């Protein structure tokens, strides 16, 4: 091992998987070996069994579907609005001066703290869940997109002008394509954060969803189900992340070349 020396692809996969194995081994050892009380932490085998039961007999698949729908729905609305605002902010400095202070302030407002207020405004229906995710991701997206657009290389912009481009052309044909790989990367990251907001929203006032199952299980002291729920969230997160990364790489082949 030497600093910054790359690792071969096969070794990379093997190393990544071996930590998962190690993690489960330590967990199994602590629980099955009787070092931790079953009341507080279920063992991996019980967890897998009750997970199977949840999926087969208790309609957990529907809960997963609801949660995924909420995340994607809320995130989609936030992204559709944040992308044009972020691009405008990055491209036009007066727009940035106008909005940036407020957006910087708003992004520190914790989305979860809005839940009581949102329940008051929107009840405990779907619009409340979507609103939590929206608040949690919208302002972050705007700022990060504005920064990506604002960081466009000045010499590329100048080259475009000397080739006869007008202001609109510079935004459309230089700022946007130049920032798109970073915007896609921002979307991927913020989608990850949206997952934490949806669970919080479902822990408080929901009649279905993964978060709702977790609170229900807490009342029954079913740590096996809680852990299964958490792992499902982690797995969905991992899958969407890989899918997003692959998609971005396919969409922006030029950004990988170096």
């Amino acid at each position: 091992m030497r600093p910054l020396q790359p690792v071969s692809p096969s070794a990379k996969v093997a190393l990544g998987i071996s930590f998962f194995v190690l993690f489960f081994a330590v967990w199994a050892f602590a629980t099955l070996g009787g070092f931790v009380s079953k009341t507080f932490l279920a063992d991996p085998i019980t967890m897998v069994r009750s997970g199977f039961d949840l999926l087969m007999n208790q309609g957990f698949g529907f809960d997963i579907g609801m949660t995924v729908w909420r995340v994607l729905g809320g995130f989609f609305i936030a992204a559709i609005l944040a992308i044009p605002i972020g691009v405008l902010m990055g491209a036009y400095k007066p727009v940035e001066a106008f909005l940036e202070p407020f957006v910087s302030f708003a992004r520190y407002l914790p989305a979860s703290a809005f839940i009581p207020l949102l329940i008051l405004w929107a009840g405990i229906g779907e619009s409340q869940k979507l609103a939590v995710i929206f608040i949690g991701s919208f302002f972050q997206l705007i700022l990060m997109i504005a920064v990506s657009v604002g960081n466009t290389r000045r010499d590329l912009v100048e080259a475009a002008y000397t080739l006869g481009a007008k202001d609109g052309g510079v935004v459309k044909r230089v700022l946007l394509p130049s920032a798109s790989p970073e915007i896609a990367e921002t979307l991927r990251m913020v989608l990850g954060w949206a997952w934490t907001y949806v669970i919080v929203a479902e822990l408080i006032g929901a009649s279905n969803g993964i978060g709702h199952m977790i609170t229900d299980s807490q009342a029954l002291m079913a740590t096996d189900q809680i852990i299964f729920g958490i792992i499902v969230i982690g797995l969905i997160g991992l899958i969407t992340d890989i899918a997003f990364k692959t998609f971005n790489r396919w969409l922006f082949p030029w950004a990988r070349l170096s």
Partner: protein
Amino acid sequence: MPILHISQVSKTFNTHGSITQALTSTDLTVEENDFITILGPSGCGKSTLLRMVAGLDSPSSGDIQLDGVRVTGPGADRGMVFQSYTLFPWLNILENICFGLREKGLPLAEQHEIAHKFLKQVGLQEFAKHFPKQLSGGMQQRTALARALANDPRILLMDEPFGALDHQTRELMQELLQDIWQSERKTVLFVTHDIDEAIFMGNRVMVMSARPGRIKCDLPIELPYPRHYSVKTTPAFSELKAKLTEEIRIEVRRASGLPD
């Protein structure tokens, strides 16, 4: 026939309250088909002068006119090749060359026809579908040259375009540009700090003084065309080089704060 008039142009920069004079009132008249090289020590304002002609910077005083029309901003009539690699990384080589043509609203078939002509001229037909990052620095600058030429500008502005290239590549590029200049009959303003390059490329060399910059000497280069690289070893070339080396040396010493 003169096409570009630079009259009494000066430039001061105001950064954080301190005022720097980059250029004192400068006059220059560029004739049609001129290849003018502007030679000077770093920081003498030669790039600033070129950027003002391009419309990327505006003069603090004075006036720049192209074909009798005052320059107020950048435009397709003044093509520019920068020292940094400014190809758009998300476009392939062909699309890069078509950038300005598309901006003009030409139909795609016509864009491609023009682009292929210039691709051929810079010897990059095989690389039309490559992305800029897959090309060497010299090839990228050749593409940048083709991209600027495809727009058919009145004047071509070149800001140390070969400055980042290694010596051998640079000499190849110089010959290539010479050939293109002769076949296309373009007017070129070419900024460099390389004396050999300034003599070899130009029909006139402008030497600029240290900051605040001004044109201190205007030297016609009467070497015959077409110029072959072997001209660099002729006595006439050496004589010009000796003269310019002396002129530049004084300015570099002055810029470095050393006595004359």
